[in-house]
């Protein structure tokens, strides 16, 4: 009975109570299904590798991954690696987003420039940036800077395009309005274009997080002394696939957390 009451908490009528119960029960069953699925996936993996249906040497297993993590924690380098990659990703994606916004602003400021650069942006956009890694090493050195550059290279063009696009789709009524007040182009930008596009910028951030992770991991594949990408490469070199899988799992978790953090910010912004 206690539970019933919780399920119907906040009800404003018996009908509402019924609705709330159904809604919350459904929510509950969604969560149960999610957790069951998670359990099945992880449990099934462990079970299959213990039974020998899949080769734990190649595919690792949850317990072996945990053991690997424990080992790294004991050595005190677990969090160093994570922090390293996390830092690089954050810098890379903030940098890419910021530079993208600046670039979009410059292009917006000059319609002529935007027309001239348009085909170049398309080419740069279609070019698989992961292939550029070696060029960064040559020009920027085999270190932190190259990794960041990789992350920025992957994010900047798409950010520029998305944000420039959103600059152009700002409600024309806003523009008519401020122009009728006699606003100049800078005021137009400061008062309308920029604030109107903040939600789009945050949405771009959401895409960029994923891309920045790709950039940093690829960058770490190329040059690195530490970080999760380094652990993956190193794991392959010494044929320790548990290390590889562990790094992948951590990347998945971190990338998801960052994505959700931005989704949360996005949600907040929608509600002002």
């Amino acid at each position, binding site marked *: 009975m206690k539970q019933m009451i919780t399920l119907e908490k906040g009800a404003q009528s018996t009908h509402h109570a019924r609705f709330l119960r159904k809604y919350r029960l459904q929510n509950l069953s969604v969560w149960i299904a999610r957790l069951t699925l998670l359990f099945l996936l992880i449990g099934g993996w462990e079970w299959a590798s213990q039974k020998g249906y899949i080769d734990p040497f190649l595919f690792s297993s949850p317990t072996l991954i945990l053991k690997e993590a424990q080992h790294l924690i004991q050595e005190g380098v677990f969090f160093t690696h994570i922090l390293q990659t996390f830092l690089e990703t954050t810098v890379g994606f903030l940098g890419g987003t910021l530079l993208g916004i600046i670039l979009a602003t410059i292009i917006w400021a000059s319609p002529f420039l935007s027309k001239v650069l348009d085909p170049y942006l398309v080419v740069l956009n279609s070019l698989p940036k992961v292939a550029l890694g070696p060029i960064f090493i040559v020009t920027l050195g085999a270190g932190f800077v190259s990794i960041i550059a990789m992350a920025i290279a992957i994010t900047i063009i798409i950010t520029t395009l998305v944000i420039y696009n959103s600059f152009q789709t700002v409600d024309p*009524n806003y523009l*008519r309005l401020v*122009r*009728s*007040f006699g606003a100049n182009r800078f005021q137009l930008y400061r008062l309308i274009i920029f604030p109107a596009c*903040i939600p789009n910028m945050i949405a771009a951030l959401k895409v960029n997080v994923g891309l920045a992770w790709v950039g940093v991991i690829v960058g770490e594949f190329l040059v690195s002394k530490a970080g999760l990408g380094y652990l993956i490469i190193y794991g392959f070199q010494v044929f320790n696939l548990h290390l590889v899988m562990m790094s992948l799992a951590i990347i998945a978790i971190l990338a998801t957390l960052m994505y959700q953090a931005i989704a949360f910010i996005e949600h907040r912004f929608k509600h*002002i």
Partner: protein
Amino acid sequence: MSTYVEVRDLTHRYWDVKSETIALKEISFSLKEGSFLVIVGSSGCGKSTLLSILAGLYPIHEGFITIDGNSLASCQKRIGYVLQKDALLAWRTIKQNVQLGLEIQGIATLKNKQYAFDLLDQVGLGHVGDHYPHQLSGGMRQRVALARTLAVKPDLLLLDEPFSALDIKNKIHLETLLKSIHKQQKKTTILVTHDLEEAIALGDDVLVLSGHPGTLRKIMKIPDSIKNIPPLEVRGHTLFRSLFEDLWREVDL
């Protein structure tokens, strides 16, 4: 009262690579200071184009317009423009929205801001100053837009179908508000609408545009007996029906 707005032989063309659209053709009319002109006409006959030109949003290629004897370009800041879509900035509170024009024109002094907030009171929305636009109904939002434009003390007020998205009660309420503000401030006003009843209820004169390209078909004077009564009552006035039918015949479908 003297002639305030003078439009002579105004033709406006829209161009793209493939073709030319003539939106307005040889429009001429003049407007006395403090008077209220309503422009009606079927969809696409160039009403919004005319208003946009008056608001300084499009350049004048053929013909000329003077405001109080000066060229239009020199008077931009003395013109206030209200659109059908209220265009309230979603990320600003109502108060911040109302002072937008003051900020743009660099005159956001304490005194002017106070005047803006007084206008907000006057349109009956002083109590929602700290709300955001999405918390307001359509009629309230349009009232804010009106206050925002009046805040910069324009000498000429232009309104492009400001009430056409509202329901009838809100519409008449806002018409009444606008009419009383006009009577009180004696600001020269041009309103575009496709609602013929609204035209009769508000205007001193009604200008009918017609056809493609839009040409001036007729300017109809509204009798003084109607001019000074509230919009709701105008609709019941004995002269109303015949005026409506006159207009109806002039406007083409």
